[in-house]
């Protein structure tokens, strides 16, 4: 997965930090943002291969970010993993509508997150080749 770029978005600086270390240790290029609004700007500028975003964030939350990404032609196909500390999960209809690849509940395992990122990028790559 060398050269693959991951955008990690969370207002919890420690979460961003630990995920970034885990991904960098495994050969990913990592860019970070503290809220949805910052993340959208980074996404437009950096065109990441995948986005890992928290749900509850100030200024612009995770769902609003994904919605905006899906409405932007150049970003709409980027897979997104949503991290959430909510007591109630995201309902399946919304998940499908916003094409959220995976929802991970906090607390999560960085190992599991890495595995999910690799799986999703692999599937995306296979689909792109077959297309």
């Amino acid at each position, binding site marked *: 997965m060398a050269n693959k770029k991951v955008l990690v978005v969370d207002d919890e600086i420690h*979460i961003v930090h630990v995920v970034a270390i*885990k991904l960098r240790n495994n050969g990913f290029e990592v860019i970070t943002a503290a809220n949805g609004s910052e993340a959208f700007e980074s996404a437009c500028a950096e065109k990441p291969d995948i986005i890992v975003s928290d749900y509850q964030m*100030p200024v612009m939350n995770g769902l609003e970010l994904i919605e905006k990404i899906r409405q932007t032609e150049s970003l709409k196909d980027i897979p997104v993993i949503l991290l959430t500390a*909510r*007591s109630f999960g995201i309902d399946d209809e919304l998940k499908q509508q916003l094409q959220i690849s995976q929802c991970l509940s906090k607390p999560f*395992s960085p190992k599991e997150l890495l595995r999910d990122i690799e799986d999703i990028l692999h599937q995306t790559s296979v689909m792109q080749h077959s297309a």
Partner: protein
Amino acid sequence: MRVTVRNKSVPLVPIGVGVAAFTLAAALLVHLWQKSFGVGWFIIEAVCCLAGAMVVTWLGWCINHLLESVTSIVRQLNKNGGVKKIDAVNEAAELADAITKKIENYQHNEFVLEEHIKQLQIQLQLACRQKQNTDAIIYSIRDAVIVADGFDRVLMANEAAGKLFGFDYKSGQLRPIIELVAADKQEFIKILSQSRNSKSRASRHEIEFVEAGRVRVFDCIISCVYDQQEQVCGVVAVLHDITKEKEVSQMKNDFVSHVSHELKTPLASIMAYSEMLADGEAGDEETRKEFYSIIQAQANRLSRLIEDILNTARIESGLIKVDKQYVSLTILIEEQLEMIKGFAQEKDIKVVGQKPIVFDQVYVDKDMMSQVIVNLLSNAVKYTKSGGKVTVSTEVDDSAGIVRVKVADTGVGIPEDAVEHVFDKFYRVKANEKQAKGTGLGLNLVKQIVEKVHGGKVFVTSKVGKGSTFGFELPLAVAEHAAVGK
């Protein structure tokens, strides 16, 4: 009762002739006795006798006529009883007897009727009293109650119903309900009709009405009233305002969601960093130390949050142990300012305190008051943008015997309609939710500690876009006690 009457007329002519002949014979005998017989006198007497006979005949005719009239009256009296035809010597006595009996009969009937009227009057009074009682019961119910007949006309409505649907509940009787209910509440009529048509004993609905821009939710129970043929002849609707319950329920859900988020976030850091350490992902000693330090900080954060939740519950239940002592509020504030400075610097916010004042001793639980001050300070920093300022001031009002602490910020401010709720448990200002995370417990805890534990008072003023000032007042400690406390 049967009344007897005669069917023969009095024989008037024989009686008249008899009387005349008897009178004439008597006159002749008198003349013969007195030997004063004269033709002239005899003619005069004969004429007189004839006249007398005619008078007697006329009188007889009158009596006959009278008897026939009485007989006719008796016949009418006996209309239902029939008439027994007998020959009687003393018809007048029988007639009198019949009339007396009839009068007695009428008197008895009159008595029976009077008794009946009395009974009806008592029943009417009872019915009136029962209606008054029913009205009083329905009027005293705080829920809105409307009783409608089979033609959707209002039979009864209480004041709450009048207020809710916008009509005069006292003058609305027998008016079609559709005319009484305000246009924006016609959904209720629809539900009423549906319930009547369904003929179910009782149905329950949740109805929302918007009043002055505020949504009010009602639990509406509609019961059908049945007649003896088991046909629906009316409906009774009771509307209970559950707006508050809904709000509390929503606040509880929000609380669970917020608390869950607040608890899971530090836990997520603790677990992720622990896993990284266990998996040897922290390459060097410096990184490991950093990870340990983060785990420790997040564990402390988790502990504080749990303590906040527990303290709120303890204060509410009155189970908290209060350890009061004499302390200077200014010194307490200085200590908390030191703690918050790091957080403020991260956000590039200037925190300004003030010089200690001469006497601001209060008799308080030091740990609890520290929590009050730190909650106010951290809130001020959280809701102030980079480059802003937080100012803390203390003033003593000797005449009122109180010390007042104010924490003013140049933050986002609070909308007017939300200001009165900021100290409510679990309440979070919707407009500012994105500014910072929180559980809605911090300010409630401040209020509980200041007011419930220390007998003080909290206050807030705010202007959107300009900032907010939160503060509290506490009674000053008595000087000599404070000196002992030192």
